[in-house]
């Protein structure tokens, strides 16, 4: 490794201006409007009249360098070497020359890229590491995304929805991503308490921070064992203790599974940003295709398509019809677990005599 170049520190990322296509540099901050030309193509028009076309394709996000080289090749051919990624991990080819748009689209189609994600559709699924890279995962993320999108891809490239539907997957309740504010999201959950490996606790864990990590104060020191103990009936299996203390593994293949939360959003359009709420507390981890989970998502999505008004996000639709109606039209069972017994209990219990039969 003698031929290593001279390292530098604290230089930060390259300045973005190095990477902008000329038309963007020239019209930076001077865009006037845009038009969505198809599920995967839009054009932005500047005050100067200049235009830039963006052609969006889906990415599995977990990509090989081969994938990157492939798209680079295409971008060289049609975009003078310019492309970007979206905040939801799609690829956007940035075309400055109208005559190259159609050929680009054709080549992309030919090569099997999925063009879409623009407008009132399902775009890419924001997701996390899962069994591919995380110790904390109660489920896999990439696999769930693939299983889901294989069924829903038409909403990416063809069909339209009442509004954008943002999907997300997180493999544990740490919820790296935006599961807590997504239209429909999956989150890996445990159903059983952590197991304490007493012999390891003393080497691997700091007792006070382990005790402090528990949201329900279920953990207390066990001085005799130089370890900790758990009041089992207080544990709601969040796994936060395992995050700080590796000697408290919580993964449990038989009982780990997937919860579905729905109705979140982050945009401020019309309604304020909303948190997602629990629709299905638990479905089994059934890789590779998680059929129960995929079915439940489809049920929810179809009820939304059926019931929502144009421009109405999923959460807005549910707020309008009421959650009691949501359970009715989806047929999802309402369980003890749906009732908050934690932070938001007070705000979520029905303090009114009004509800729908």
């Amino acid at each position, binding site marked *: 490794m003698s031929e290593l*170049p001279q*390292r530098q*520190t*604290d*230089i*930060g*990322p390259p300045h*973005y201006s190095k990477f902008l296509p000329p038309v963007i540099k020239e019209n*930076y*901050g001077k*865009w006037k409007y845009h038009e969505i030309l198809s599920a995967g193509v839009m054009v*932005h028009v500047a005050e100067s009249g200049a235009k830039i076309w963006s052609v969006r394709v889906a*990415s*599995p*996000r*977990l*990509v*090989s*360098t*081969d*994938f*990157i080289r492939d798209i680079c090749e295409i971008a060289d051919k049609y975009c003078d070497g*310019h*492309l*970007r*990624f979206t*905040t939801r991990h799609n690829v956007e080819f940035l075309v400055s020359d109208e005559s190259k748009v159609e050929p680009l689209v054709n080549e992309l189609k030919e090569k099997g890229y999925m063009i879409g994600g623009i407008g009132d559709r399902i775009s890419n699924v924001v997701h996390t590491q899962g*069994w*591919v*890279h*995380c*110790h904390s*995962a109660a489920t*896999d993320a990439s696999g769930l995304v693939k*299983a889901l999108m*294989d069924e829903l*891809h038409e909403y*990416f490239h063809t069909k339209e929805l009442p509004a954008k539907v943002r999907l997300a997957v997180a493999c544990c309740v740490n*919820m*790296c991503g*935006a599961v*807590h*504010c997504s239209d429909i999201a999956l989150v890996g959950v445990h159903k059983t308490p952590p197991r304490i490996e007493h012999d390891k606790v003393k080497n691997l864990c700091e007792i006070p*921070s382990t005790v402090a990590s528990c*949201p329900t104060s279920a953990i207390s020191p066990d001085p005799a064992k130089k370890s900790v103990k758990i009041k089992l009936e207080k544990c709601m299996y969040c796994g936060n203790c395992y*995050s700080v203390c*590796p000697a408290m593994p919580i*993964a449990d293949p038989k009982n*780990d599974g997937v919860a579905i939360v729905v109705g979140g959003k*982050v945009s401020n*359009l*019309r*309604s*304020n*940003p909303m948190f997602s709420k629990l629709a299905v507390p638990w479905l089994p*981890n059934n890789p*590779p*295709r998680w059929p129960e989970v995929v079915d439940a998502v489809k049920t929810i999505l179809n009820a939304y398509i059926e019931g929502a*008004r144009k*421009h109405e996000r999923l959460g807005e639709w549910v707020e309008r019809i009421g959650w009691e109606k949501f359970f009715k039209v989806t047929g999802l069972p309402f369980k003890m677990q749906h009732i908050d017994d934690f932070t938001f209990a007070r705000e979520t219990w029905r303090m009114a005599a009004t509800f729908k039969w």
Partner: protein
Amino acid sequence: MSQKHETPLLDELEKGAFPSFVKEIKRAAEHSEYAQDLLGQLELSYKEKVTHWKHGGIVGVRGYGAGVIGRYSDVPDKFPGVAHFHTVRVNQPAGFFYTTDALREICDIWDKYGSRLTNMHGSTGDIILLGTKTENLEPVFAELSSRGWDLGGSGSAVRTPSCCVGPARCEWSCYDTLELTYQITQRFQDELHRPMFPYKFKFKMAGCAVDCIASIARADMSIIGTWKGNIQIDQEEVRNYAKNGMDIQAEIVDMCPTGCMSWDGNELKINDEDCNRCMHCIAKMTKALRQGEEKGATILLGSKAPIVTGALMSWVIVPFIKLEPPYEELFDLVERIWEFWDEHGKNRERVGELIERMGFPVFLKETGLEPHPAMVKEPRRDPFFFWSEEDIEK
């Protein structure tokens, strides 16, 4: 290289219309031992329904505490290629714009030292180089940094700031999200690379209330563009929308959350005093409506995922700020906030949680911010509240 492990379960996920991550791992596996054994271990996880990764230890590059996520297999004997499988977080350029040259440069380095696998990008925004062994970390870093790339954040540090495409390609950006993201990143290089906070601190910059970077949900500081002044209406274009089939009453007027619009079939009127700048009408009639002329941003603080007491969204701490270089007013505020957090924050306590624990009024007082009705959706309900010495008659 031919495939080392049988992967019947994963093979199933090569089928189907949506692009497949399994295919990607397999492509990488053609040239990479890491990817080979990743396939094997992942197949095992699919079979056993459990992760086979252990907690990461402390690994990284010299002088930095951040930028690398350590990761070890719990079945290293079976899958030695992923015995170590550390992630390198490379700070993306603001707005996720690249030239193909730049991307290839990164691929070249990663092909040489890593798994050939990446996430483009991580949820926070980094270029995630997925999996290498400890001894390769320094070389990867040397190669990257010598070419102008640096690592992103991890641990109890500033996390890699990120932003929406903003003024680069969007007509609604009320400030320069890319430049601010770049400047914040540069300004806080030390805080980004050397964890010294109670916990992580994230910045996300959105050019307007559409919030295409989901800043309000997942940034300790969410900076969201907005404006003052009347929405500018091009009535001719409004009529064009109507002509082209838009039901302006139903789709725009009736959906305005403040009910401040009206439409008589010919003219659209907005009572701007009542507009809360939600962006709905503008987004749906981009050719006809433009934001008011005095541009700036709202600063919100505190969002995070649900651990420990439920998720938070960021809330308004500065209703309006002009955001132009050199951004000193903003940086000052950030530093006052960190001081407050440093002084009072517990280990693993996000700034939002701290403010909830100490009280928003205390936070305002200590950081020198004035209370403003924009900070609350509604005032408090219970009539218990603190007074200061100066409010009391002796």
